[in-house]
C-alpha cells in the first residue's frame, strides 16, 4: 500500500499572475499574459513574460550570479513554502528534496556568452567563469538549495514539455520511497530568453502570430497557427498525508494517479495512441473510470496538428462523455514549456473549492476536429462539484505524462 501524497503548498509565477490567487483570477476573468517581446536577432516576437519581484527572495548579488531559471525556481519555492505554513526553520533540511522539471537549461547562458565574446572578436578569454555553474543541468534546483539551506537531494528532470508533471510525479515517488519528508516539486522555464527556441519553432512553421498578442494562443480554434512560448514556474510542497495531517496543514488535493510513457514514434509528431495509453494508465493507477474525471486540462499547444492529435486521444479514452469538462490554460499564458504541466494543473486546483471550470479562451471558430466531450469555451462554467482533475502534459521525442488529482475528503 503506497503512502497517500497531498499538495500542501503552491508557489508560482505565470505571465498573468505571481501567486495562485492572482493567476486563478486571471483564468476566470479571461486575462491573457501574452505580449510583444524583443528577442536577439529576431526582433519582436510574442511571448508570455513574468513580472515577479526576484528581490523578494534573493539579494541582487544572487540574481547577478545565478540564472533566470534559478530566480524563477527560488521565487516559486519560497512562495510555496510560505503558502504551506510549514515550520521550515525547524524542518530537517536533509529530508527536503527539490525536484524540478525542465524542458531545457543552459541555452540562455550559452547564447549570451557566444554573443558576449562576439563583441571581443570571439576571443574565448572573455568567456565567463560563471558559465559552468550556470549551465549545469541541476542549476535551477541547486540555486533553490543554496537560497534556502536545503541539504537534501536536488536535481532537475529533463522531460521536454511534459516536465512539469514529471517533477511533481518524481517528488511523490521520492516521498513514497521515504527518501525525503518534504518535496518541492514542479517545473520551471526561462526559455523565452533564448532566441533559439523561437527560431526553431519559426523554422518548423509552429510559431504563433497574431496582430493582437492576447489572441495569439488559440488552441482548438480554426485559425490557430502555432505556439506562443512563455516563461514561468510552479512548485508544489508535497507531503505524505499522515505528516500533513499531523501538522494540521491546508490540503489542496491528493495525488490519485499518474503515468509517464513514450510514443516510440517520432521526434516531433505526437501519437494519439501513446497519449491515450498514458491517460489510461493514470486512470488505472487511480482506480477510477474515465467518466469519473471532472476536469480534463489539455496539453494542446495550438499547433494545427497537435491539437487534433490530442483530441483523437481524448475521444479514444473518454468517448463523447459530456460529464468531462475540457479546458486549456495555454490559451491564456502560452506554452510555459517545462513549467506548463505544473502551472496548468495549479490553475485548475481552486476548482475543488469553487466548482468553477476556467475556459479555453480565444476560440472564435471551433475546429470541428477539436469538438470533443464538454469543451468549456471563452467563459468559465459553474458546476456542482469537482472531484477529479486529469492534467495532460506531452513533449518532444514522444514523452507523455498525465497526473490525476483528487479533491481531498477528510
Amino acid at each position: 500500500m503506497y503512502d497517500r501524497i497531498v499538495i500542501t503548498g503552491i508557489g508560482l509565477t505565470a505571465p498573468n499572475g505571481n501567486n495562485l490567487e492572482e493567476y486563478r483570477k486571471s483564468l476566470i476573468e479571461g486575462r491573457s499574459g501574452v505580449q510583444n517581446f524583443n528577442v536577439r536577432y529576431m526582433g519582436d516576437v510574442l511571448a508570455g513574460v513574468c513580472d515577479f519581484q526576484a528581490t523578494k527572495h534573493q539579494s541582487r548579488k544572487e540574481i547577478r550570479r545565478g540564472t533566470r531559471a534559478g530566480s524563477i525556481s527560488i521565487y516559486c519555492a519560497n512562495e510555496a513554502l510560505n503558502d504551506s505554513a510549514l515550520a521550515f526553520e525547524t524542518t530537517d533540511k536533509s529530508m527536503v528534496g527539490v525536484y524540478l522539471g525542465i524542458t531545457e537549461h543552459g541555452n540562455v547562458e550559452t547564447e549570451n556568452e557566444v554573443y558576449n565574446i562576439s563583441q571581443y572578436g570571439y576571443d574565448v578569454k572573455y568567456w565567463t567563469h560563471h558559465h559552468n555553474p550556470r549551465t549545469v543541468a541541476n542549476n535551477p534546483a541547486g540555486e533553490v538549495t543554496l537560497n534556502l539551506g536545503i541539504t537534501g537531494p536536488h536535481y532537475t528532470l529533463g522531460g521536454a514539455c511534459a516536465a512539469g508533471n514529471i517533477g511533481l510525479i518524481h517528488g511523490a515517488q521520492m516521498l513514497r520511497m521515504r527518501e525525503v519528508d518534504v518535496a518541492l516539486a514542479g517545473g520551471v522555464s526561462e526559455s523565452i530568453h533564448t532566441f533559439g527556441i523561437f527560431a526553431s519553432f519559426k523554422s518548423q512553421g509552429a510559431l504563433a502570430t497574431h496582430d493582437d498578442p492576447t489572441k495569439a494562443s488559440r488552441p482548438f480554434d480554426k485559425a490557430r497557427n502555432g505556439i506562443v512560448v512563455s516563461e514561468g514556474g510552479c512548485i508544489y510542497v508535497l507531503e505524505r498525508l499522515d505528516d500533513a495531517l499531523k501538522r494540521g496543514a491546508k490540503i489542496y488535493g491528493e495525488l490519485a494517479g499518474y503515468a509517464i510513457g513514450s510514443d516510440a514514434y517520432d521526434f516531433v509528431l505526437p501519437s494519439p495512441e501513446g497519449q491515450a495509453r498514458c491517460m489510461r494508465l493514470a486512470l488505472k493507477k487511480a482506480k477510477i473510470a474515465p467518466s469519473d474525471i471532472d476536469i480534463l486540462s489539455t496539453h494542446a499547444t495550438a499547433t494545427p496538428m497537435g491539437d487534433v492529435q490530442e483530441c483523437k486521444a481524448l475521444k479514444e479514452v473518454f468517448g463523447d462523455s459530456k460529464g468531462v469538462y475540457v479546458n486549456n490554460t495555454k490559451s491564456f499564458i502560452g506554452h510555459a514549456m517545462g513549467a506548463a504541466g505544473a502551472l496548468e494543473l495549479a490553475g485548475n486546483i481552486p476548482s475543488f473549492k469553487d466548482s468553477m471550470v476556467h475556459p479555453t479562451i480565444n476560440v472564435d471558430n471551433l475546429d470541428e476536429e477539436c469538438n470533443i466531450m464538454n469543451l468549456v469555451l471563452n467563459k468559465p462554467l459553474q458546476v456542482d462539484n469537482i472531484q477529479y482533475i486529469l492534467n495532460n502534459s506531452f513533449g518532444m521525442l514522444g514523452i507523455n505524462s498525465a497526473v490525476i488529482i483528487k479533491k481531498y475528503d477528510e
Partner: protein
Amino acid sequence: MTKEDVRKSVLDIIASIAPDEDLSGIDGDAPLKEQAGLDSMDFLDIVMELRKRYSIDVPEGEYMELVSLNSSVNYLAPKMENI
C-alpha cells in the same frame, strides 16, 4: 588615469559585482574580501571586468595584488596611466 581615477574605476567594478554592499566606508588597506563580501568567483569577476573595460590582463600569479583597494590601485595605476 590618475590614481584617484583608478580608485574610482576599481570601486565602480566592485559595486557592480557586489550590488548589495555599502562601499562608502571601505578601508583601503584592509582586505576587500571581508569588507565587500567577495569570494573567489567575485575576484575573477574583477579580473574579467578589468580585461573588458580596460584591456588589462592580470596574470594568475598576480591576483594577490588585488587583495585590498589600495594594493589594487598601486598595482593598476601604472597599467592605466595612459588610459
